[in-house]
């Protein structure tokens, strides 16, 4: 059965995040209280990396169940970790844990169960900085991912396949994404093809379309194109989404359109809950 490989240190999996850093990412992100889209996406990615590290922490260390790459595309297409990991491509989780660019302290408000709320400081590591400049070379970014994952796949045949999550706010300005995405999804380990999920973030507070099974509700050709190149959700991920009350058709795809900040975070959380960690 595909997408059932155990994720272990001997057979790790990997995530690649493709982040649109074009000039339009300067615009406000709905639901994010004055944050630019670039800021909201950076926060979501940093929070996701933090959660991933904590999830894989055991005792005093972190188990390398995953390798992670972050590729930004805008003024240039490049690996986008900042700080000590700057310029590095696929980075094992233990290095991510120990080498953030910096650790901020942020205020967090939480309920204490009796109706009152308390504010306290929490650590917030930063690995990825917001950026918004240039056009949208999405095709080139996907091609970079193909080049990055081809040797990784060859040396990890038994692994749960890589998950590539593309976050963008607009149409590609190069030949992408169709031919490059097709090449990407042709890559496969023995456990299944590379999973390519897409999240379009919105300028407007409009109703998001999340995990659709067809393109009937999508408003334009760009959305339909992005839907077309997106992988179906493996059954294990679809089951988890259903367990959280989402209504998903049998052939739902890992796709979100017009996502606000809440949907972006939920999309990332679900998309990265792959496999059984051993």
């Amino acid at each position: 059965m595909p997408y059932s490989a155990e994720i272990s240190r001997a057979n790790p999996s990997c995530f690649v995040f493709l982040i649109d850093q074009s000039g339009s990412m300067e615009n406000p992100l709905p639901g994010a209280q004055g944050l630019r889209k670039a800021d909201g996406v950076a926060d979501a990615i940093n929070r996701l990396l933090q959660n991933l590290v904590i999830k894989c922490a055991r005792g005093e260390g972190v188990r390398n169940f995953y390798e992670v790459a972050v590729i930004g595309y805008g003024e240039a297409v490049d690996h986008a970790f900042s700080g000590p990991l700057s310029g590095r491509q696929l980075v094992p989780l233990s290095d991510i844990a120990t080498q953030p660019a910096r650790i901020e302290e942020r205020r967090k408000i939480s309920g204490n169960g009796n109706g009152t709320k308390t504010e306290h400081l929490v650590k917030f590591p930063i690995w990825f900085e917001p950026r918004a400049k240039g056009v949208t070379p999405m095709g080139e970014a996907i091609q970079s991912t193909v080049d990055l994952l081809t040797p990784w796949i060859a040396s990890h045949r038994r692994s749960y396949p890589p998950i590539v999550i593309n976050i963008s706010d607009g149409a590609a300005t190069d030949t992408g994404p169709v031919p490059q995405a097709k090449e990407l999804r042709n890559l496969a380990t023995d456990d299944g093809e590379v999973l390519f999920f897409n999240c379009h973030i919105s300028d407007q507070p409009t109703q998001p379309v999340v995990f659709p099974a067809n393109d009937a509700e999508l408003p334009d050709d760009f959305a339909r194109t992005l839907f077309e190149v997106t992988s179906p959700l493996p059954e294990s991920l679809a089951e988890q989404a259903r367990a959280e009350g989402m209504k998903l058709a049998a052939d739902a795809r890992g796709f979100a359109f017009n996502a606000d900040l809440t949907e972006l975070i939920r999309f990332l959380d679900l998309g990265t809950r792959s496999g059984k960690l051993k």
Partner: protein
Amino acid sequence: MEPDVHIFGVAKLGNDAEEYEDATGSSSEGRRFAIADGATQTSFADRWSQILALEFIMNPPADEPAPVRWNNWLQPLQEAWSMGIPWDKLPWFALEKARTGACTTLLALEFVPTQNGNGHARPALWRRLLGVLPEPAMRWRAEAVGDTCLFQVRGDRLLQSFPLSRPAEFTHSPVLITTNPQQNRLVCEHLKTAAGDCQPGDLFLLMTDALAKWFLGRHVVGEKPWQRMLELRDESSFRQFVVAEREAGRIDNDDTTMMCIRWPHEGEVAS
């Protein structure tokens, strides 16, 4: 009368021996046994499973009503777990993880002599002369949270399967005992109990989930998996068996522990 006890364990493939998160405890007089399976997705679960398994042997819960009994027993152990964590030396991620607590299953088994005294059954000759049914030498009682299982076998027949009895009952998210005292009420709600009598020759097999699921899977297709277990007389043969079954895809890759408790037949001396 004392049982013949063997305890075997094999770590999850890909893990080091020191990452083993199952724990066992057995009292020297062969009356109390415990087996606990620390949840691999939590941190410092090995310490938590060890604390519970050993404490059940050394200082079992007092004889009180269930919720009070478990809360009173668990709270000091939860404090002991927390005291053992080097909180001020942990990096940010380990600190965050440890704050969420550790989890474990627990299966606790206790043998209690019956009223005829010291655990010896009335001799068979007397029973035949008196024309009465065999009187149990012992009673047993067990408590369980989670999917660690007990199987009682008598006369080549499975008599009890506790707390699970079908392979489909094993899920990825059983209720567990956590290091968070606020969860103790939940533990009491999900605590399962069982009891029965124990005759000379009875076999009790205690297993963590991967092996228990295998055991029930073989039993539902008409096999007698305890016979295979009885052939495993040392650590090496147990390891070979688990590795072979894992490679064949019949046992999940997980820490795998078995405690085999066999009460001698009348006239037999435990080895």
